[in-house]
């Protein structure tokens, strides 16, 4: 059974065709259009404000993909994912700033790409460390161990010790020119955007591929019923830890990307709020779907930007409003999550699926 809707007269003759990514000409056309949009239209034709918003969407999506993998596919609820993003960000920064890179590597611009990879791996290992209790505990008890990850990592280790390295106090700053991929120095909106687009695309591809392989099927089996999965011969501890590793890897890479956007780093970028925000993103987007993570990020970032557009003109009349905007944002986010969970529990991805189905059958929907 093919995973996509096939037009009349299109048949598959092999399993490979069935599991293929771009199964029909229309889908191929659509996806190429999408890639063109991401890599050509947005960065080259839109004003840089919108490029910045798109970068933010991508960063949120990178974090949300890891959360989606843990919650939506492996059924391991995590409320501390910002910790792993933070670990990635700090690993990358420390590697870029503190390691004595040989000059030829700096000339080739290898320092930052290598740091991204290492940051991902360190993030993954850190995530596995806090995922270890998942071998024994489940449900709410597990949620608390991931919360422990957040408080231990960000509020204690990073704030008290790692940020003190080099004697700069709380914040690290990356001097211009240190963030360099190959010959390109990443210092403008567009370059950051391209880095984000490449990383996000790679992550989506990696996750989609994992999910249609043995590993992904094992995760889904564990999510649906872990005891049944165990009786089917799935090593649940191994696969749970693998899920934590991959999610931590995504988080670490997202964090390593983040430093190219801000060129500065402090523990306040990764509060507990951000962990909860990421979970909220996938709930709004839809649990158990990659589309969900992307749609959720787009929705949240765009809605918050719109809110800002509303607040800024109003603030000429009520100057206090600008100061209070952060708090209004919190409240609005809380209400948005609650409203979505009550009125649209399947999220935006489900709505998207319905729209697609409608047009697949259109105009003869019977």
């Amino acid at each position, binding site marked *: 059974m093919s995973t996509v809707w096939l037009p009349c007269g299109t048949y598959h003759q092999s399993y490979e065709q069935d599991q293929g990514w771009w199964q029909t000409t229309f889908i191929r056309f659509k996806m190429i259009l999408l890639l063109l949009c991401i890599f050509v239209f947005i960065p080259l034709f839109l004003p840089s404000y919108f490029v910045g918003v798109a970068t933010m969407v991508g960063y949120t999506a990178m974090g949300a993909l890891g959360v989606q993998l843990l*919650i939506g596919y492996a059924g391991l*609820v995590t*409320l501390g994912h910002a910790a792993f993003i933070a670990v990635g960000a700090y690993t990358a920064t420390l590697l870029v700033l503190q390691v004595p890179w040989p000059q030829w590597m700096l000339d080739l611009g290898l320092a930052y790409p290598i740091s991204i990879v290492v940051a991902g791996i360190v993030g993954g290992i850190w995530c596995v460390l*806090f995922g*270890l*209790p998942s071998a*024994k*505990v*489940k*449900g*709410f*008890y597990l*949620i*608390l*161990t991931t*919360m*422990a990850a957040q*408080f*231990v990592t960000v*509020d*204690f280790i990073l*704030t*008290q010790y790692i940020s003190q390295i080099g004697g700069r106090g709380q914040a690290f700053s990356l001097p211009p020119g240190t963030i360099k991929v190959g010959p390109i120095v990443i210092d403008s909106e567009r370059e950051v955007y391209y880095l984000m687009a490449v990383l996000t695309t790679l992550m989506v591809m990696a996750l989609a591929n994992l999910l249609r392989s043995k590993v992904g099927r094992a995760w889904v089996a564990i999510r649906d*019923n872990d*005891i*049944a999965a165990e*009786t089917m011969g799935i090593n649940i501890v191994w696969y749970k830890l693998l899920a934590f590793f991959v999610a931590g890897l995504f988080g670490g890479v997202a964090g390593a990307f983040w430093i190219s956007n801000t060129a500065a780093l402090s523990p306040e970028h990764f509060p507990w709020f951000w962990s*909860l925000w990421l*979970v*909220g993103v996938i*709930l709004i987007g839809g*649990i158990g779907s990659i589309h969900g993570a992307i749609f959720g990020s787009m929705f949240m970032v765009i809605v918050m930007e719109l809110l800002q557009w509303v607040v800024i003109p109003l603030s000429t009349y009520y100057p206090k409003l600008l100061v*209070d905007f*952060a*708090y*209004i*944002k*919190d*409240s*609005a*986010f*809380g*209400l*948005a*999550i*609650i409203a979505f*969970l*009550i009125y649209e*529990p399947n999220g935006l991805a489900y709505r998207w699926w319905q729209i697609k189905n409608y047009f697949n059958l259109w105009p003869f929907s019977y």
Partner: protein
Amino acid sequence: MELFLMSLVNGILVGGIYALVALGWVLIYKCSGVLNLAMGELTLVGAYVTLTFYEMGLPFFAAVLCTLAVGIILGILVERVFLDKLIGEPVLTVIMVTVGISFFFRGLVEFIWGTDTRVFEPPIFPIEPISIGFLKMSPVYLWSFILAIVLLLVFVGFFKYTRWGLAMQATADDETAALSLGISARFVYAAAWSIAFMSAGVGGALLGNINGINISVGYLGLLVLPAVVLGGLNSIPGAIVGGIVIGVLQNLSGTYLDKYFPGGVKDIVPFVFMAIFLLFKPYGLWGWEKIERV
């Protein structure tokens, strides 16, 4: 040795407040199966509401009584507006709704009262420490502990002996059977949320007396989560013991570990201890073990 005893006693005294807040948490979980992550914000709301009443000129105990009243109203409102519609939904949905509630209240509190640290002015409890034998303790801790224990006893008594409390117990034990005997589940949930708001509110007011009120009171309220996990999610004695253990642990680690790991080790030790503890007892001290079948 004296230092040890001092930290121990202070820990027990603060632990009493945690136990009070943890009780509210456990009641919600027992009665409606909702895992409430908004507990920190409930304490925050309570602290600020008490402060407002106090600044309006009411004496502290009258302010606490008013907070209890506000707690009842807020509890019923929250249950009716948000959680009523979610009966029968998956656990994650309900957890995230409580997270949404926590964001909502946090934003609201910051919007109304701002983020500066506020203190009860004039101070409610005398500052000179009381000495019992060689133990010195500050009256804030002692009175807070006494008030917390009194309220704890009142709530436990309510749950154990009154008609409404018995209805709550029945629902906690078997919801379907309770419904068939004519107990209104909606009433029970509303009562559980009201008690949670009340206990968290008073807990917040007491914690605010100790350190002043700002957003970090919400974080202290979050410390009930390790407390309830330690005791087991659905055990009332567990919540009380867990609260006191967390209080003691926090103070002892503040006294002894701070030398080796400076900066805030006090706030994370409960979480670390809990994560390690869960490896050995996955259901806490007295939580019900779930036997799962395929």
